[in-house]
């Protein structure tokens, strides 16, 4: 102990204390603070990067699920649209068919009616014509008959005879 005290130099102690405190303060300002801040920042950066990577992964998964869902939806929609289109097509065809049928029937009917009326008209005309013709013939015949007196009388006789007979 005495030896220790004998070796103790107050001047060296003072110089060492002053120099050391100075060194601590200087290093704190120029070295430890920037070093520790940089290390801290870096560590935080790493943690943040890992976090955001994890987040991005989750987001990616969500996105993928969303995509899957959307795809599924789109598929079902397409399916339903196709079905609807098919239905509409069928209906349209059906409608067109029935309408065409109706139209055809109508046309046929009209045609038939027209034919009928034409036929009737033709028949009437024919009748008239025939009547005309027969009248003409009759006229000619009568004219021929009446050209001589005998015949005229004869005719009147027959005609009267006929008449009376038919009327009885």
């Amino acid at each position, binding site marked *: 102990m005495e030896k220790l005290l004998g*070796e103790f130099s107050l001047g*060296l*102690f*003072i110089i060492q204390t002053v120099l050391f405190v100075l060194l601590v303060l*200087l*290093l704190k300002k*120029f070295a430890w603070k*920037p070093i*520790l801040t940089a290390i801290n920042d870096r560590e935080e950066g790493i943690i943040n990067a890992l976090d955001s990577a994890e987040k991005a992964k989750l987001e990616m998964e969500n996105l993928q699920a969303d995509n899957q869902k959307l795809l599924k939806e789109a598929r079902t929609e397409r399916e339903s649209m196709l079905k609807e289109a098919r239905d509409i097509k069928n209906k349209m065809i059906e409608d067109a068919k029935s309408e065409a049928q109706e139209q055809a029937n109508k046309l046929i009917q009209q045609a038939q009616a027209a034919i009928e009326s034409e036929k009737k008209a033709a028949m009437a005309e024919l009748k008239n014509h025939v009547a005309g013709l027969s009248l003409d013939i009759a006229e000619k015949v009568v004219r021929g008959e009446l050209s001589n007196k005998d015949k005229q009388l004869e005719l009147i006789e027959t005609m009267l005879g006929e008449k009376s007979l038919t009327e009885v």
Partner: protein
Amino acid sequence: MRRKISLKPITLLLLLTAFVSFGQDAHHNDEPKPDGKAERKAYIQHHLKDSHDFGIASYTNASGEKKHIGFPLPVILWDGGLKIFSSSKFHHEKTVAAVDGNFYKIYHGMIYKTDAVGTINYDDAHHPTNVKPLDLSITKSVVMIIVTALLMFLLFGSLGKSYGKNGGIAKGAGRFFEPIILYIRDDIAIPNIGKKHYKKYMSFLLTVFFFVWFLNIFGLTPLGVNVTGNIAITFSLAILTYLITTFTAKKDYWKHIFWMPGVPAPMKIILAPIELLGTIIKPFSLLIRLYANMQAGHIVLMSLIALMYLFNSIVGSSLSFFLSFAISLIEVLVALLQAYIFTMLSALYFGMAVEEHDHEEAH
């Protein structure tokens, strides 16, 4: 692995120069004088102490004259006014230096005020009774402290700057120390002090760790001196730990010292002085541990080197050589270990000071 290999030749080189420079002295002093043992002991003792000039090597030339290689350092004394003069005036601690009508002499590494012929008066226990002026000289230790401080400032200052330039990634020589800084933060400061308070102690812990480590390593080089093995240095470091502990201590710390909770009242009265003494013993153990370890390491190493010249035979000397080589390697480890222990214990004491208890009855 690469780094390890490349360090080896450097260590070896340093060790060899150590042997050479120590050896020259011991060898040349050994032969002409009959009392080599005392000479060696004195040489070792002298080396362990601080010195007022920066001696690199000394030898005795052919004409028996002792030559010193090195350079003198400025002596600064406070003796009723500032006295500054070169240490060359002492002529390697042999003569009396006369400055402004005052006379000074170095005795066992200390400067004493004497009369013109350099008489030193002793008391009964053979202690000098002369006046000791306040010695603020730039001694060998101070030179090494300044060198270490500059080295640290350049090293860590450039490391601090390199982060900004490289987008948060360290560059340059300081890069090697970044993991160590991280280790001190994550494995010394945070576990002992706690995440809440550790930040304000980091500057001291980091500085003390590298300061002690670098000076320990410098002490192992042949040029370096035994700075951390000097009681004034370790005392200064320990007292700073003590002051920081005391002034940053929270209420709970004082409560545990003066009025230990959960103990019967008479015991509290007995415990208070013991606890109070404990606060002083803790830093005291710090200073003694570092001092003793480094001092002992130097003594062992130099004794083994001296042994080589004592044996003076191929077998004994080479045995001693390998022994001292092995001890040198161990000393490299001890240099790091002591820096670690000092930092670790400082952190532990700071942790005690800021510890907060919310469990009144637990003790």
